[in-house]
Structures are given as C-alpha cells and as structure tokens.
C-alpha cells in the first residue's frame, strides 16, 4: 500500500471539499498518496501541524509566518500556487476622489478587512507605515467578517468596498483576487479606482515540519507539480491556480516584518 501523507486545509467555503477530493484523486496510485482533513480556522491547523497531527498544512502567508515564528527552521515550505508568488494589495476609492499616494490618506477614513488578513489589513498598514503614516494618522474602519480564515472568504474585503460605496469610508484595502473578482475598474467604470498597488509578496504555501521525511516531502511535491491545468481545470479553477510551483520565500519578508512590528500574535 502506498505511503499516505495527511494534508490539512481550512474550509473557508464549500468548494474546499471538491478541491481536496480532486487533489487527493490526483495523488491516487502515485508514489506518495495523500488524504486531507479540514479545519475551521488556521490557528487550529498550525497547532495540529506543530503537534504532528498532520504532515502538511495548506497555509496562508500569516499561518506560515506564525509557524516559522513558533518553530524556527524546523518549518519549511514545499510548494505554492503560481498566483501566490506575486500577490498584491490594492487601495481603492471612489473614482475621482483625488487620491494619488498613500500619504493622501492622512486624516481620511480607511476600511480594512479582517484583522488577520495579510492582504486587507496587516500588509496595507505595514506599507502605510513605510510611507510615514501611523495608524493614528488615519481613521481606521475594520471589518472583521472572516477572522480565523485570514481573509480567504473575501467577505471582509467586499464589506470594506461596500463601505466606500456607502460613503462610510474614503478608501478600502483589498487583495488582488477581490479586485479581480469585482472586475477592477472595467466592469463598473466610474465607480471605483485603485490609487495604490503594493509591491509583490507571497501568499499561501504548503508548510511542513522536519518531522516529515525529506524524501517523502519531495516525492509529494514532485507529484503535485505534475498536476496539469488541462486535465484538472475544474479543481484548479476553484483553487485559483494554473500551475503549482516551488516556493519563493523572499516574498514573505514584508509579512515577517509586519507581524513583528504590529505585534500580531
């Protein structure tokens, strides 16, 4: 019987089940098979990875950073989605609001997504601070709509945008996937515009501890990288990936710094 690796993932929407059933099917009959368990939040998943309850965790960037901060170099990343490599945050406002730079937000109202969302809260605040703006220089409006899911549902970002459209906020911080999901400026021209785009940073990755034998981990990654969009488009569309890639760790540097700076637990 083939060796089975147990992967943890967070059930942030109903499609996580068909996604992981599809990935499990992809591994069936290979050198290393895999099965999955679903968690309701990333904190529990990280706890279980460290406790050895699962072999691999499909982590957000914040879950990865927290894992590394707890166990140091015992943790390593195995793979990412192509879309995780150059992830970005955007600040959007009503079209014609006159925002051009981050500094234009001084004294204005900024809507953020859930406080544990790297793309819609932690990293926007980090880059604002790099631009010379502290939290007290801006009226922050937080939408903690999907805490525990690290912003995966997108709901808190949609709430933040709605606040802009309803004139409760002057700008909203969102991730690129939400900006794409509402069609950027093109679907509703004249409604919203992006006035700032963050530098690229890394999003999710498969995280393991040194308890997973390197050879098993490598065999698992080899099989993952063989997953082709042409044969698995339904699953890969649901997961937002065209191609699985090796990890590019430099993209996590801003989030490590932001977590340290903001004292994110």
């Amino acid at each position, binding site marked *: 019987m083939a060796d089975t690796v147990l992967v943890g993932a967070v059930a942030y*929407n*109903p*499609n996580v089940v*068909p996604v992981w059933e599809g990935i499990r099917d992809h591994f069936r009959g290979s050198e290393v098979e895999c099965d999955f368990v679903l968690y309701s939040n990333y904190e529990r998943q990280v706890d279980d990875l460290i406790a050895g309850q699962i072999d691999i965790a499909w982590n957000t960037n914040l879950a990865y950073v927290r894992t590394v901060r707890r166990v140091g170099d015992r943790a390593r990343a195995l793979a990412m989605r192509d879309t995780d490599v150059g992830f970005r945050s955007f600040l959007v406002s009503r079209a014609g609001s006159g925002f051009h730079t981050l500094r234009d937000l001084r004294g204005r109202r900024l809507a953020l997504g859930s406080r544990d969302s790297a793309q819609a809260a932690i990293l926007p605040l980090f880059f604002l601070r790099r631009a010379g703006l502290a939290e007290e220089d801006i009226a922050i409006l937080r939408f903690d709509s999907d805490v525990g899911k690290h912003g995966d*549902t*997108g*709901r808190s970002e*949609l709430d933040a*945008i*709605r606040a802009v*459209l309803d004139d409760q906020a002057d700008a909203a911080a969102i991730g690129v996937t*939400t900006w*794409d*999901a*509402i*069609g950027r400026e093109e*679907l*509703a021209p004249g*409604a*919203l515009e992006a006035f700032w785009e963050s530098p690229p940073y890394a999003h999710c990755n498969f995280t393991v501890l040194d308890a997973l034998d390197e050879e098993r981990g490598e065999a698992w990654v080899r099989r993952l990288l063989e997953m082709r969009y042409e044969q698995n*488009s*339904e699953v890969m*569309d*649901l997961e937002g990936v065209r191609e699985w890639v090796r990890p590019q760790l430099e993209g996590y540097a801003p989030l490590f710094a932001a977590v340290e700076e903001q004292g994110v637990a």
Partner: protein
Amino acid sequence: MSASLVLDIAERVSGLPAGGSITIELASAEVADLVAAWCERTANTLVEHDSGSIEVYRGRLADPIEALPVERRPGHRLWIYTNFHCNLACDYCCVRSSPRADPRMLSLDHIRRVAAEAEAAGVRELWITGGEPFIRPDIAEVLDACARRLPTTVLTNGMLLPGPRLAALSEFSRDTLAFQVSLDSPDRELHDRHRGVGSWDRAVAGIRTLRGAGFRVRVAATLGYEDQATEASFHRFLDGLGIPAAERLVRRIAKRGFAEDGVVLTPQSLVPEVTVTADGVYWHPVGADDEDMLVTTLVLPLEEAIALVRERFVATRRRQDALARIFACG
C-alpha cells in the same frame, strides 16, 4: 448601481458550492451585459432565461450539449410535421392523428423556406413525419424541397405508397431520401389491434415495394407492455425482410396523445429534437400536439428557433444538476 450589483454577485457566488447558482431578476439589458462580463472574467457561468431572469452558476460548467453525441445534439436533426391527419387512427398515436384530425398542413412554400434555412442553421438531417405525409397530394414536391437540401428520411405507415406516389419518387436519389416504415409486430393481429385491420399486410407490402425500388428502409416498432415478448421474434421477422439491424428502431409507447399508458415523457426528461409544425416549434416530435412541448410559435428564422431550444435545454439541464446536488446533500 452597477458597482453594488457586482459586489452583491461576487459575494453571493463566492459562497456557493461549485455548480450552485443564484437567480438575478433582470432590471435591464445593461444588467445582463454586466453580469455576462463579470462571469467571463471570473470563470463563472451565465444562463439567461427568456422569462427575464438570469442564473449565475459557480464555476465553468460543462456544456450539456457538448456532452451529447453529435447526432443527438439539438438542431442536428430537424423534424417537420407536414400534416396531422392520417388514414389510420392508431390507439397510441402521440399526436392524436386520425382521418378526423385537423390537417394543420405546413404549406409547401413554408416547408421550402424551412428547408432552405436548415443547413445554414446547423441542421444535418431532415425527418419528415405527420400524420401520414403520403396523404398529401404534393408529397413529392415536399420531399424534393427537403432532399435537395439535406439527407431526408420520411416516416410513413407504408400503406399509400404503391401507385402514383411512389412513381413520383422514382427519380429521387437513393442517397438522400430514405424511408422509415411503422411496423409493430411480426404478428398481423397484434399490429392490427393498435393500428387498424389490414394495416399490417399493407405496411409489409410497402416495405417490400420500397426496398424493391432501391430505397433505404428503416423499420420502427412501437411496443405496448403486453407486446414486449414479441421483440425477439420481431427481429427474426425483420431479418427475413432484409432490414439490417442498424435500421431497426424498437421503442415503447409514449404516454402522449391517444395513449392511456406508456412511458411518461416531459421536456425535462427528453433531450430535444427540434420539431416544426404548422403551429410552431416543439421540443420533440413525440409531443408535437401538446402545449407543454411548444417552444415558440415563430418557426423562422429557423436559426433563432433552434438557438432557443438549445438555450432552454442547457438551462433545464443545469437547473436539474443544481437540484440533484441539493438533494444529494441530505
């Protein structure tokens, strides 16, 4: 308004399981265009209903038409009901044809226009039926209008063929005109019980006459529950008539028209076969006399009528798939 609508759709759809759907009432054509553009960008699927609403399905759904064999895709085959009256009054007739039925004839000119538009509309085969098509005095002109455009098969009880009608077909290409004769049993009595005394002898004679004239002949049998035991002997009988296995169609009585019992068929349970009558375009020839199978009273332009049938089929299949998922969760 449009930005709020996009936000609402994005939020509602993101919470759906793959294949799940939401319904949006259309306030304007601009809304439909906006939602279509959103679906295209976000890899979701839009289904538009002629009732004025649209449905958005999570994910890119497989096209149910693409899943069908080419020859079964709606619009590949076009049925034309030339008329509804008939020299027989079969007790199971799905469209209530009889000598007393309202003829509801499609005019020769109308048939010519349908045939002329058919190929450009994607039709690859024409199937002529009724009623009994050969009851029409102008049947040769009807078949000429069709067979010169596309391969054509005409359904008949075979009884009216010998004589001048067949003679008028003598010049037709055997490659483009074929016949499908109704014969229900190797047993004269079983056949005649449903279709009328003397009909078996004349149908068998018609098959022999057509084959003798060099035409390709299919045989279609309609079996009641009590007749199913005759199926094996029926095939032996058709072997004797020289009808190849591929040219035989054996089906059950449909509970439509005159039939009191039989297989229940609805638009939801049938893959459509676009059917033109004097009253409009129907979902399937088996229901061409029933309101629930009427798709539109506008036959022309034929391409639009076929597109409407295809849209309804896709919408019906997707709704069924969504319901199946919902019930499967229990």
